């Protein structure tokens, strides 16, 4: 704002405006309309219509003109700015009660639109900055809106083809059989959790670490026969817990 001093020689005009001089009122309004723009500056990049905010800001400025009191001992602008902001605040709070989720949904569709458009224009996947610039919003807001929403899939009716499965993690790790084995191992883990500590230790060492009954017996300070008995009982329990699935051959 170039001319702060243009707000200063207002006293006389103000007085006349307050005494009902419409022309003076208009003049003082025009001289200070810059204050509204100063305030609106801060709302750039938000979802609000600048025009709406200007209307409301004007109401604030006119109120300030009518209510300014010279005994305040402050400059008119110092008094008017909070009035303008206050009026805008009231408007924002009365006007919308948009739930966060809905707001993001609207933004989300815009993002998808911009993404498609830029992909076409650039011939490659646009980056977040480019989408943000296209929509004139913060790039962070794009990330947050993406978190909050998702479009229904397959809008373009693409059926996920078999070839898409190629890069799958478990594919790389193992075959389909293995996927099932992994799940069975999970079932086994669950069942193992239901054994008591000693049973579990015996099973783990016997079948997963290939230790002999006598080594385990020595470690635990019991006889080999006892280990054999614990093992048998534990296997019985596991079998019933796991149903028909036979994992331990």
């Amino acid at each position, binding site marked *: 704002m170039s001319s702060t001093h243009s707000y200063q020689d207002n006293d006389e005009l103000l007085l006349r405006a307050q005494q009902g001089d419409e022309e003076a009122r208009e003049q003082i309004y025009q001289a200070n309309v810059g204050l509204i723009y100063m305030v609106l500056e*801060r709302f750039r990049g938000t979802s609000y219509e600048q025009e709406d905010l200007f209307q409301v800001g004007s109401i604030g400025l006119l109120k300030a003109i009518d209510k300014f009191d010279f005994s305040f001992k402050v*400059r008119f602008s110092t008094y008017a700015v909070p009035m303008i902001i206050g009026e805008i605040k009231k408007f924002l*709070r009365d006007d*919308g*009660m948009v739930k*966060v989720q*809905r707001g993001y949904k609207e933004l989300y569709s815009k993002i998808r639109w911009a993404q498609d458009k830029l992909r076409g224009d650039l011939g490659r996947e646009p980056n977040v900055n480019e989408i943000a610039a296209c929509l004139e919003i913060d790039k962070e807001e794009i990330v947050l809106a993406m978190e909050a929403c998702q479009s229904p899939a397959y809008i373009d009716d693409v059926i996920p083809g078999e070839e898409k499965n190629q890069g799958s993690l478990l594919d790389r790790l193992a075959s389909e059989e293995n996927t099932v084995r992994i799940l069975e191992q999970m079932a086994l883990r669950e069942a193992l959790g239901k054994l008591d500590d000693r049973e579990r230790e015996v099973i783990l060492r016997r079948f997963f670490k290939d230790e002999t009954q006598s080594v385990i017996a020595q470690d635990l300070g019991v006889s080999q026969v006892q280990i054999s008995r614990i093992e048998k009982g534990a296997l019985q329990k596991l079998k019933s817990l796991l149903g028909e699935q036979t994992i331990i051959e």
Partner: protein
Amino acid sequence: MNVKNYVRLEFSSLPENVSFARSCVGAFASQLDCTLEDIEEIKLVVSEAVSNSIIHGYNNDPSQTIEVVVSILENNSLEIIIKDYGRGIENIDQAMEPTYSSDPSRMGLGFTFMRSFMDEMDVVSEPGKGTSVRLLRCFPSQDHRAMA
């Protein structure tokens, strides 16, 4: 007042972190039962305070650090503290005056925005040591709103 949830952010005093900080605080605040307008207002005030720390506190030196602590208090109010270890403010009352700015190219509206949109604002500052701005915003719980 007990804290239900909090986050503490610390980041370089780079201009690109202003938009990061406001979005981040906005995202955290959205845990509360509030509207999109509330979030926009909160983002606005965080923007003002963080910009002040970068511009006035650190004189645009990007190697400094800004801290933001956001807490959701037990009564569902949101407390935001923005702190720098920069130049500090000599005359806080004057600084808070609408349209006062130590920089003739600026408008001096930052503090006015913070005070207008938040329910409480406290500024603690020591020249040469730094500035801490505490902002509080209350959110009536859903039940209260329904009754109103």
